[in-house]
């Protein structure tokens, strides 16, 4: 097996000197770097599955850094962003941070701060992706449930007893028990507590139908 690849840092800045120098600096810190002159160029690249982050200029001709942040979120892509800017613009930085940016740094960039932020961003990307994978997995499990099992699942996690669920759904308590066992099995939950957690992570809300 080849050694794990170094995390990849995407540098998007319309200024050629800036993106070249940043790519260079990032490489000296043990990362791989890929520079882009515009948001459009970056979006044309196929998504990267490995550990990575994005160092992104805020103000650029055409699409801005904030536009890219928005586009990534809309596409469900988990890629942590370190914003860099030549302007101390508080409203913009607030928007960027609310949008999930790891940091908002002002040019010229302090090496320690930048590399620290990049390290944090790579870690955040990985964590976000693990989280995303986990949610996907839970949703996949939920997708295997029959409509009846799903209904039982939704009521079980609200804390209702089998008997109450039976009367709610108009089925026998015994039948509820069978469905419940199938739900535990399909969701791979060892306990009610775990099932409740999975429901939360998977976004299952009590079915009010």
């Amino acid at each position, binding site marked *: 097996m080849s050694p794990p690849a170094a995390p990849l840092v995407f540098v998007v800045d319309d*200024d050629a000197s800036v993106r*070249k*120098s940043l790519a*260079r*600096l990032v490489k000296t810190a043990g990362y791989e770097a890929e520079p882009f002159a515009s948001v459009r160029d970056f979006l044309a690249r196929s998504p990267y599955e490995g550990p990575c982050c994005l160092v992104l200029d805020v*103000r650029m001709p055409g699409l801005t850094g904030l536009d890219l942040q928005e586009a990534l979120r809309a596409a469900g892509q988990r890629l942590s962003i370190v914003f860099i800017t030549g302007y101390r613009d508080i409203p913009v930085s607030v928007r960027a941070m609310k949008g999930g940016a790891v940091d908002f740094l002002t040019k*010229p960039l302090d090496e320690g701060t930048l590399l620290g932020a990049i390290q944090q961003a790579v870690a955040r990307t990985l964590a976000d992706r693990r989280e995303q994978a986990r949610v996907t997995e839970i949703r996949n499990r939920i997708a295997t449930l029959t409509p009846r099992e799903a209904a039982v699942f939704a009521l079980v996690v609200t804390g209702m007893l089998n008997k109450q669920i039976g009367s709610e759904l108009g089925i026998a308590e015994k039948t509820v028990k069978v469905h419940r066992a199938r739900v535990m099995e399909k969701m791979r939950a060892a306990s009610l507590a775990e099932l409740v957690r999975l429901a939360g992570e998977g976004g299952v809300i009590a079915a009010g139908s």
Partner: protein
Amino acid sequence: MCLALLTLLCPAPFTPALAAARDLVQSGSWAVWQVAVGGALILSLVLISTGLLLERAGRRRAELSLGERLRFETLLSEQVATFSRILGTDVDREIQRALRRMADFLAVDWGHLTEYSEGSQTARVTHWWGAEGVEPQPSAIGFGEIPWVVTRLRRGEQVRFSRVEDLPESGAAVDRQTYRRLGIKSQIAVPLTAEGVVVGSLAFSTVGNERAWRDEFVQRLHLLGEVFANALSRRRSEIEGQRLRQDLAHVGRVSTMGELTASLAHELNQPLTAILSNAQAARRILDSAKVDLAEIREILTDIVEDDKRAGEVIYRLRGFLKKGDLELSTLDIGELVSQVARLVSSDAIIRNVAIRLELAPGLPPIRGDRVQLQQVVLNLLLNGLDAMRESDVGERTLVLRTARGDGTTVVVAVQDSGVGIPEADLDHVFHAFYTTKPEGMGMGLAIARSIVEAHGGRLEARNNPEGGATFSFTLPAFEGGR
């Protein structure tokens, strides 16, 4: 003896008559009587002839004086015409020319204009003409060196002397001494007045010979002095106007700088960011186990390049803020326009405006002050950007165009796709303090128009049929440029 006298006196045509008289004298006493009568006759003839001759000579002198006077009047009226139409910048040259022509006409050795300085109590020579081979006169004379003359001139009187001794011995002793020291034999001087105050003098002098000054010339010199004084005072007010315009332009530039600060900070920040990151990368490479010298060299090259780039930004900024005198040079309008477009490019990016340059090729050069004309273009561009603040992002286009105008002019136009100008306001957008911007001073367009007009051009505004406004100005082409 009488005959001998007659012979001496008589011109050639009377010689036969004299010969006849001589014959009569030789023929006896009757003859003597006859001779006496004839002699008297001849004498009266001679006297009449001489009188006629003398009268003719006198008339010739009078006619000559009339011709001189005519020439003098012509010369003066030419000066009046010349000085009424020339520009302030040509005043010095024309005064110099006029001095030479007057001095030529009057056959004097020196002609000069002085300006009185109250501070230094001197009459400073501002314009001087000297005949060939004549030593130049001192560049200033203290009031104390010619107190009698200065006092008279400052009272609005003329001063005229045919020889230094004409100056009063008691009152003008110092003046006499000074003129002798300077070698001046005769002089005529008239005061120059501006708004009723004597500000200097116009004088013509001889150094070789003493000479008389005709009354009519003296009278006319007053007129010439007035013409000169008017031209000089007009030039002074033109210079003041120009200074005011420059001050205004400077104010305009400084306030424009405020608006531009953000984008210029950005322009400086980019190379500084690159320099810092490169330097940090180089340090990390040097700290690493395997030093890649080729990489280090490349980094240093990039650092040098970015440093130059930062320097250029500062240089441009400084050139822009410079409060200089009007510096006329031959300029390529396309180049000038592109430079300004570059200056606002980052500002345009921030505002999501696309600037499109449409430069006509092969335009003739123009002549003007680079910085001031840049100021005009910059003002128009910034106005265009501001006008599109409310426009849809996709429609924010600013077209910067150069073209050949009517006749021998070039045209620069800035076309925006903004809100346009309310028809009612089209007439006074160029007035000082007219503004639609909350933070604006309303000086930009007023300054721009005064600069364009100072260059002999016109600045106009109109609304585009498809929306937005176009500001355009013409500048005369400089066809004499090499």
